[in-house]
């Protein structure tokens, strides 16, 4: 459990794997929802908007709002629709590219 996180983890047990987000390594529950796992790990900002550069984080958790967009292997993906796998390298999505997805 991460005390810096605004989220309480009810089942903190289970195997963890290493995920890099924006250059920082996190031990996240294997197979978990990536957006939820990053939130529980204390990540607060997932991306910046293309228009004003304002910070954003998951809003709907059901694949509809696109505020959880991140960059994985050069492709913008919705973190809330992605599973945690070992060695995942996740970067903040650069603003303007989101329009071409």
């Amino acid at each position, binding site marked *: 459990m991460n005390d810096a996180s605004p989220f309480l983890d009810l089942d903190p047990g289970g195997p963890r794997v290493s995920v890099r987000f924006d250059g920082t390594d996190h031990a996240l529950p294997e197979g978990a929802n990536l957006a939820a796992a990053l939130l529980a790990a204390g990540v*607060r900002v997932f991306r910046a908007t293309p228009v004003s550069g304002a*910070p954003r*984080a998951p809003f709907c958790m059901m*694949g*509809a*709002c696109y505020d959880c967009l991140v960059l994985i292997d050069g492709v913008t993906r919705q973190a809330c629709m992605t599973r945690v796998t070992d060695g995942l390298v996740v970067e903040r999505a650069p603003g303007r590219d989101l329009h071409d997805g």
Partner: protein
Amino acid sequence: MDEVDLLILGAGPAGMAAAAEAAGAGLVVALLDEQARPGGQIYRDVTAVPPARAAILGPEYRAGRPLAEGLADPRIRHIPGATAWKIDPDRTIAYSVDGKAALIRGRRLLIASGALERPVPIPGWTLPGVMTAGAAQILLKQSGILPRRAVIAGSGPLLYLIAAQMVRAGTPPLALVETQTRGDLLAALPHLPGAIRGWRSMAKGLGWIAELKRAGVPRHRGARDLAVDGAGRAEALALTAGGRRRTIPCETVLLHEGVVPNIQATRLLGLPHRWDQAQRCFVPRHDRWGETPLPGIHVAGDGAGIGGALVAELSGRLVGLCAAAALGRLDPVERDRRAAPLFRTLARERAVRPFLDAAYPPGPQTLSPADGTIVCRCEEVTAGEIRRHARLGCKGPNQAKAFGRAGMGPCQGRFCGLAVTAILAEANGQSPDETGYFRIRPPIKPVTLAEIAAMAPTGPDKDSA
């Protein structure tokens, strides 16, 4: 191309129930769903949730388990992790699983795409730390996490449910801020006798409120002028209630002003929709079997009009029966015999809606956001800009796209469409029906050119890429 008797989009209660009923009558069914496990949002991960979490979520959630287990029928092919990005009136769906695209066609098609949270455009609603109440429910169901220092704000029974679940989990909300007023409750009273028929749902709601009271969760009713404060993230919710402005420091704000049908798929199909004034949303037109004016295409569940999980399940069963009869697997007399008790229960379950719709209307900020408030989250277009478009002659949401970029971001209007319609309708003195809604074009979910190319030569039209 794959072909099945009944193709279903969405594995929530409506889709799962339709699949079971149709398979029971001998139909071959395929059930496409975006998630890894069946259940929809309401029963998300119900087959995988650990017992302690299931206890927190309560009996209404656990009730979804038999439905999900019913998908084990060999005539049902559940295709999880499937993103549908094009749907044609000939009942063909183009979808991708793990970056691989495929086409599937149904002799009948059911769109059971459920509900979305109604957009709640208040100042600061785009800040990190602001989520929908539905998102918090999903976090609890699927991931076993809940916000520690959260304020819940808006209107509707779901607020009580998530707050009660947070109490049970040992992390009660700091406050419950409700936008509905005593006047709304008075306006709802004439619907009370009808609601008594659906007393079970009423009793559940009162039970949750009692749980919150026992836990000492502060409740602010008739709240106005909500705003999320914070530099770069949510730090407090400000509101006016009882004639006094107050600020509640917090880390998370959970917003909810009810749910509305997710109409991306039905709009993409070009189906006719009508404005439902009681629920203040667009619903696809359909008959009592969920059949739309397009032959062989049905809708069921919240996507056909908000009714909740039980109504969704019943309406899905009716579509299953109707499809079986239409394809000659069920005698129409037998269809009607099986449907009769379903229609009766449906009427009882729907009886509570007019009361709930009147008692928990979307707040005034939701229906008419202040000029400075962002309406389109993706393109950061404010309500004031939409009103300015109206003054320049913009009559409808599609024209608004030409005036600005509202609705043109990745969410394709899912979280601004209703607000844009409401603002333009008000500014132009037109009804929402006259004002209309965004035209939805494929792909309705992002898809790569490589995925589309790999499907040639039966791939989608060139112009949709």
